[in-house]
Structures are given as C-alpha cells and as structure tokens.
C-alpha cells in the first residue's frame, strides 16, 4: 500500500453520502469512460451485493452514470445524471446480479458505444473512494486508476515483454507495476503495465506496431 497522504484524511471533497457507494461509484464511471474511449450509446449497470441493496439510497445509480458522463466526484451535476444522459441520448438501466467471489460493492458495466462495440467492465469500490477495475471483457486486469496504465492483448511468445519495455525505456518511462496474464501457454496474453508518466500517442503507436501485439490501449488515471 502506498503511503497515506493528509489528503486521504482531510478529503476528498465529494458529493455525499458515502465514499464507497457514491465517490467510488463516480470513479468507476470515470474509469469506464476512459476504457471505452468512444461516444457511449447504451449502458447496463449490473449491480451486485451492497450496491444492489442500497444503490438508490446512496445515489450509486446517479454516481455511476455521472462518472460515465465524465463528471468528477465533487460535481453537483451528478444529482442530474439521469437528465444529462437523456439529453445526450444515452440509454441506461440498472439490473440486479449475483457475481461470484467479488467485493460486496461491485458493478458489472455493459457499455455499447457508437461504433457498435460492447465493452464489459467489472469494477469494485473497495473503500474510501478507492476502486479496482477487476475485468475488462473477461480479462482480469486489477487496475486502480491511480496510474497511466497500458493494457495490451498480445500473442504469448518469448520476447514480447522485452519489446514493449524497450519502447517504454526510450522515453525513460518508469514502470510502477506490471503483470502479465494468460489463459494458456502460447495463446493470447494480457499485460497490465502501470506507469508513472503518460505514454505519448507516438509511443502507443510504436507499441501497436510490435508484430505480436493485437491490441493496446492506454488508460489515464482518474482523480
């Protein structure tokens, strides 16, 4: 765990009533927006556990949607998230779900964007406004949105990670955390690389040009 800042004690400035059910929900929405990175057409929020039981009383519904619209945890407009989404022509719905082995404050977001692509994101609000993106499209990523994060989908071959780090190294981009996950040897693997600084568009392109890389995206940190 990183060292506590005094801003963890006094703050954040946020809309009530709950750091986990409201502020954390906004951050889940913010991160989902970053991950999708396209105009959103429709979203289904599948709510699990305590999110399912108390989402209206905590404003979790408005918080998730407001976050997806790009509002910050302290933005009073979150209270009008339903109206704002309607103005933008975004359809939204809240549904109960039972997910296995997840934190009680978990939501599964099914987001259809204007390119007709659907992205599925599973995220948990783990306390004090901190969140963890557990899965993107079924792939375990476990990222917390505190770093610039590079996510790749690549062929599981020796040397791919070295090629990626070479690109990062050229810009002296320091890797804070990194994990590589694969379903089975030689198949497709995912790397989640959390960086201290942002990756330029040029660098992202260089990564995408690596022969074994199928997909690569960068997710900016959210406050």
């Amino acid at each position, binding site marked *: 765990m990183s060292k506590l800042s*005094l801003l963890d*004690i006094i703050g954040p400035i*946020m809309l*009530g009533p709950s750091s986990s059910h409201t502020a954390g929900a906004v951050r889940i929405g913010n991160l989902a927006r970053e991950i999708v990175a396209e105009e959103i057409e429709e979203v289904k929020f599948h709510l699990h556990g305590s999110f399912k039981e108390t989402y209206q009383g905590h404003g979790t519904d408005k918080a998730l949607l407001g976050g997806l619209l790009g509002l910050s945890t302290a933005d009073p407009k979150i209270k009008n998230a339903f109206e704002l989404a309607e103005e933008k022509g975004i359809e939204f719905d809240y549904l109960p779900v039972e997910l296995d082995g997840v934190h009680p404050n978990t939501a599964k977001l099914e987001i259809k964007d204007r390119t007709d692509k659907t992205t599925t994101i599973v995220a948990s609000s783990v306390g004090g*406004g901190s969140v963890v993106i557990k899965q993107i499209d079924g792939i375990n990523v476990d990222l917390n949105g505190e770093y610039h994060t590079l996510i790749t989908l690549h062929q599981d071959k020796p040397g791919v990670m070295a090629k990626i780090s070479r690109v990062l190294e050229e810009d002296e981009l320091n890797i804070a955390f990194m994990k590589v996950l694969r379903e089975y040897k030689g198949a497709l693997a995912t790397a989640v690389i959390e960086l201290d600084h942002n990756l330029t568009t040029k660098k992202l392109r260089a990564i995408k040009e690596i022969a074994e890389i199928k997909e690569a995206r960068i997710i900016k940190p959210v406050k």
Partner: protein
Amino acid sequence: MYDFKTINGLIELAQKEELSIPEVVILREQELSERSEAEIRELMKKNLKVMKEAAQKGLEKDDLTSISGLTGGDGRLLAEAEKDGKSLIGAVISQAVAKALAIAEVNAAMEPIVAVPTAGSCGILPAALLTVAEKYEKKEEEVIDALFVASGIGLAIAQQASVSGAEGGCQAECGSAAGMAAGAVVYLMGGDHNQLASAVAISLKTVLGLVCDPVAGLVEVPCIKRNATGASNALVAAEMALAGIESVIPVDEVIVAMKKVGDALPNELKETSLGGLAATPTARKIENELTLNN
C-alpha cells in the same frame, strides 16, 4: 525525513526540529507529494471553504432531505431552538451539535462535503472547529493550521488502527473524527502538546467499542446523530484537556486499544447492517418500505 506513525512520534519530531505541528505535517506532505507548501495550504483552504458552505447549507436550507427521505432538517431545528434562547447546554456545544447535524444531513442529501476522515463522519471536525473559531474570532490561517493538526492526528490513527467503519466500527470513524477535532480545537486555543495528546486520548476512550450499524445500509440513521455527539465529545475532551486534565492511558496506547477492539467486533457490527440498530424491528420496517418504494 518528516515521517511519523504515532501522535507521540509527531510531537517528538516537532520538539526535536523546533517546529509547530502543522509545519511537521506540511513538511511530511511536501516530501510525499512533491507539492509546495503554498499548494498544500491552498488545498486545505479549499477544504475549509467546502466545510463552511456545507454547514451553512445545512443550517439555512429549509427543505433539506436525504435521497431516501429518511432524514433532514434537524440541524436547523436545533439551531433555531438555541437562537430562541432555549439551549440547556450552552451556546458553544449547542451550535457545534447543530452544525454537525447540518453537515451530516447535507452529506445524506448528496451535496458536496469534505470526507474527514470519511463521508459518514464528515460533520464532526468542521462543526467543533468552526464553532470555536467563530466564538473566539480566530483568523482563517489559524483555522487552516488547526486542520493540519487534525490531519496529523488522523494520519497517526489511520497508520496504527483504522478510520473505516467497515474495518473498525463507528469508533474508528466517528471516534477518529472526534479525536482529530479535539486535538485541533486544543491547538486552536493555544494548548500545549500534552494537552493536545490528552484531548485526543480522552475523546477516543469515551467511544471505544462503538459499533457501525447503519439502518438499511444508509449513511443516515444513526450516523447523523453520532456526528452530533461526536462534535460534543470533541469539545468536552478539549475542555478537560485545556483545564489540565490528563489521560491516564497515553494516546497511542488508546489508539492501539481501539484497533484491537475493532478487530474483536463481529462483522455484524461493522457496517454490514446485520446487527445493532440496523437489526431492530423498526429498522427492518424502514428497510422494507424503502425496498417497496424502489
């Protein structure tokens, strides 16, 4: 290195370096965040502004209601009674309690607040501090310094125990907030290091074992009224400490005891709404009604 893990560590560092407690807390943050002192002070000033606005909104808005419809308007009710000369306990405590209710009600109404240390306990520190600051006409910079003192206390509690109700019960949330407020008020009133440490210890000791049992899982019942008693707890502890009353058990030992009590609390009493007030017949009835309304 300006790091500390305990209240005693914070005080020793201040004495050794001949610095004030706010200075040590700011230097620690500068090392941690690479922000300048001016930036850190500016952030705290912003926090203070939101605290004041929340108190004002809670006391003045005549239709303040939580999203669930369960709560709202109690801070205003008490403030009016006090203004009408009907206070039993005196202006300072009565006004602080009214502000604590008001800010916690603003939180439940999905309005902006500062989580100190959490959203559920957001009324305690601002209520105690702002009331004392108004009464004794303290300057804004002095109040901001007191907020840094409160942060230092909160950091010491969070590093030795917890400030989360789900981990340690309400003692960790409203208790920590009261400890932070008690120490900040002692600092604002010119108390010394020992008095500050005693105030934190006394306020925490009185709520050891306090459970977290929110009705229907919402940050409303009993949270809002526990903010009220948290603010009065802070002021009573500060009053005792400033008079020279000491805590027999040193403050950091109290914090560790709070951690152990929190660990010993069953999960039913740690924000799960399975025990305590949340499991009473009335709470269950409220829960059912809220579900039906959905």
